[in-house]
């Protein structure tokens, strides 16, 4: 009898697995808009061409060229628990822009583009003002449309594409660009600094509480292109902003490269919340295609009492290499990092954070939840560093891994570097699968295995999802369900 029950159970499991693996990536469509691209390949000429297309000032071209020259001397990082195939950097198109007439008006935007963002459910039109989120939509290399700019401008908030910022606020860009992630920081940061195309720029002036959530939506559309966007967020003293980032890409057989940089500057008493739902195309069930997501994200709490919160839900990308970090420079500054990383099929993720404690009484908290299924590999890699002379630093890290299936891997690589005796640093991690007793408990109470798994995962990831802004939490939860539900084996 017992055996029969077990057999029945496992059949349910199989069904669920089929259901899940059968569920397609629903953002895999391609938009047919005319695209303005440059030739494949990377050279100083390419960079000059990009810069010229964007009509950039001389200093920015210099910045790009310096980065490119540095990049040539650097080597691809191989330390991560990732199997990254050789990338042919000459086989990538570094600039692709949907052709459209210049203009701020929504009615000027190519209807195909509009359709795309409608399909993605991105509230680009002012009619959707009810959702109350200002959006900057970036397609391939350029920003397509930024909403609510006028409303925000009334409060002095600058929210625009990076290119616009270079034109309209060159002083601000010049003052902050590269101050948190220098162009020579790492291989992909150097590459981005050389060829970055567009991205978002946010400046919240002194004492302003940004009245709405700001959001950027990134989409890779054209074939053979790489996307290299750059985001710069500055919160001046006593300012507050909550910023969301989302992304998708079409389903293609070849891999596409995405190497972005996010820099965040948080001044005295200011607060920035940065949330990401990363849903790049993860490749198919056999691990073919998908986006390589090699991103450098870093923020600095420059002044006293500054606060920076990272929240991320990572479900997409074939390979993820991403470590949103915070430099806690101002005294009493606080940073938090909440992450759920899900890998399925042949996805690989090596992600985590760095907390660098410099200021006195700085506090940081890391909560990372990894979920791996299929043949995937999911690693947490994080560093907590307390420099000499930093008094009263406090860190708490918790990194849990959940394994769904016996062919996947979950790895934890924390680094604790403590140079001051007044620091209190704690790290703990667990790895396990969903307990049969937990499922049994739910079953007994009439909850199906499928729902039980969903429930347990929801509870498991709850700590992180609760930190997401409301608009995102819903999307994030849906994503989790699609990526995982039932893939327990």
């Amino acid at each position, binding site marked *: 009898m017992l055996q029969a029950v077990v057999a029945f159970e496992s059949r349910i499991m199989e069904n669920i697995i089929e259901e899940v693996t059968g569920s397609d990536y629903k953002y895999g469509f391609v938009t047919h808009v005319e695209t303005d691209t440059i030739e494949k390949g990377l050279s100083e000429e390419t960079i000059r061409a990009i810069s010229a297309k964007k009509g950039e000032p001389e200093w920015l071209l210099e910045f790009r060229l310096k980065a490119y020259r540095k990049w040539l001397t650097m080597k691809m990082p191989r330390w991560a628990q990732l199997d990254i195939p050789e990338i042919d950097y000459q086989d990538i198109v570094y600039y692709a822009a949907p052709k459209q007439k210049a203009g701020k008006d929504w009615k000027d935007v190519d209807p195909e583009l509009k359709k795309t963002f409608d399909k993605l459910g991105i509230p680009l039109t002012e009619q959707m003002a009810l959702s109350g989120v200002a959006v900057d939509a970036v397609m391939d290399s350029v920003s397509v449309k930024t909403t609510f700019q006028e409303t925000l401008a009334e409060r002095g908030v600058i929210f625009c594409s990076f290119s616009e910022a270079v034109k309209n606020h060159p002083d601000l860009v010049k003052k902050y660009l590269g101050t948190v992630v220098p162009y020579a920081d790492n291989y992909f940061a150097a590459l981005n600094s050389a060829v970055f195309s567009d991205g978002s720029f946010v400046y919240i002036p002194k004492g302003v509480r940004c009245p709405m959530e700001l959001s950027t939506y990134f989409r890779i559309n054209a074939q053979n292109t790489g996307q290299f966007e750059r985001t710069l967020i500055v919160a001046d003293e006593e300012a507050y902003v909550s910023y969301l980032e989302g992304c998708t890409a079409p389903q293609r057989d070849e891999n596409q490269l995405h190497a972005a940089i996010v820099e965040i500057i948080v001044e005295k008493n200011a607060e920035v919340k940065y949330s990401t739902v990363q849903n790049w195309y993860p490749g198919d069930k056999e691990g073919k295609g998908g986006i390589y997501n090699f991103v450098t994200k870093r923020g600095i709490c420059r002044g006293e009492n500054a606060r920076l919160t990272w929240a991320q839900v990572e479900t997409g990308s074939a390979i993820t290499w991403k470590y949103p970090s915070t430099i806690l420079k101002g005294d009493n500054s606080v940073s938090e990092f909440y992450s759920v990383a899900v890998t399925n099929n042949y996805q690989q993720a090596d992600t985590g954070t760095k907390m660098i404690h410099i200021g006195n009484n700085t506090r940081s908290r890391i909560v990372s939840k990894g979920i791996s299924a299929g043949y995937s590999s999911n690693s947490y890699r994080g560093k907590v560093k307390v420099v000499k002379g930093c008094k009263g630093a406090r860190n708490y890290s918790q990194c849990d891994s959940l394994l769904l299936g016996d062919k996947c891997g979950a790895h934890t690589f924390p680094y604790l570097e403590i140079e001051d005796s007044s620091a*209190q640093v*704690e790290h703990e991690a667990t790895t396990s*699968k969903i307990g049969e007793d937990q499922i049994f408990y739910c079953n007994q109470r009439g909850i199906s295995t499928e729902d039980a798994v969903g429930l347990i995962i929801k509870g498991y990831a709850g700590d992180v999802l609760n930190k997401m802004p409301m608009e995102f939490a819903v999307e994030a939860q849906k994503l989790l369900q699609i990526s995982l539900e039932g893939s327990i084996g």
Partner: protein
Amino acid sequence: MNDLEKINADFAALFEAGYEQLQAGCGMGMNAVRKAAFEHFKAAGGVPQGKEEYVYANLVPVFGRDYNVVLRYIRQDVDLNEIFHCAVTDLVTDPILTVNGWWFDGNLQPELPEEVVICSLQEASLRYPDLFLKYYNRNVPAAAKDGLASLNTAFAQDGVFIYVPDEVVLERPLQIINLLRAKGDLMAFQRNLVILGRHAKATLLVCDHTLSKQSFLVNNATEIFLEDNAHLDYYQVQNQYLGASQINSVLVSEGKNANFDSTLVTLYGGFIRNNFYVALNDEGAETGLYGIYISDKNQVVDNFSYIDHVSPRCRSNEHFKGVLDDAATANFSGCIRVRPDAQKTEAYQANNNLLISDTARVNSKPQLVIDADDVKCSHGATVGQIDEEAMFYLRSRGIGLEEARMMMMFGFAHDIIQRVKLDPLREQIDMLVEKRLRGELSKCYNCMMQCRK
């Protein structure tokens, strides 16, 4: 040529020039693998500087001195009575001495069951070629990334060989006492091979001492094989002086239901690196790695462990604790590897550090690499100070500041020490640790026994 290249070049020159001499007196089993081992050392990049496994250890100053290397045994006058007259009287062990990595020729043959073999590694390599073929250098490839274990294989000429056949249980602990004594700065290599047959049981106590004030660099490797159901309790007490550097590799391979239980007490030494590679090769194998390190001045203690869960249903438990004063540095790096089919694994790992000075530093790197789903694994690491509430509790009961601190530190350390199963040894270690915490031990650079005179 930078310092590291120079060190590596020196090793290459030494290996070439001394190759003939290295072989003298050693059996085929040892000599046949030397060249390949040295090639591996070179291929791994020589002395591991900046490598992930050694990321916090700066080996260039350790290897960069001008050491003498002695490629033949030099007779030493060590008076056994002199060393042992003050030893723990309650603890009766069978002592085995090595001097500068060589088997001491005045060793007495302990009274043991007939089939048990305890002799010098050289002698064993000549007399038991079959055992050698089966076991020698089998574990080192597991530590493939570690060039220093290969370096040991290339240069090692002697050490201790212990063979406990099937079903034999040794009542008395075996005690290996590694002595260092030289007139000039010395680099020494020592290789031990310990084999426990099926259902065999033994206790091994290893003590490291320095008898003279020269600079030493010891590269010590101990290969341990535990056949099915074998059980080894392993204790190591490292008590040297600031000028002594030690690379100590313990490479363990376990069969079905075997158990390797190790407690490491690091009291004193300039630079100490401990490598534990444990492979749980068959079902039900178990290992416990425990360690306490107490460091001050500018000492460096670097503990590294790699526990490889190859088979299902194995258990490992790891706990290292340390107290750090002055400008001492402690590095902890532990990796639990669970292979794809090693289901039902249970693995725990913890590292706690107590910082009692502003200039001490800790780098902790507890890692989990898990490729099986039905496992229970966890790790934790903490760095902190003495609990103020507990201090207040003690102070409010009239205990002085210094004494209260001592009690707290001692309690912290005792957590590990209480695992020592031999009562007299535990008491001895408790006593040593207390002395060490009070700073009395550091005044005496000699071995722990002489401190009691």
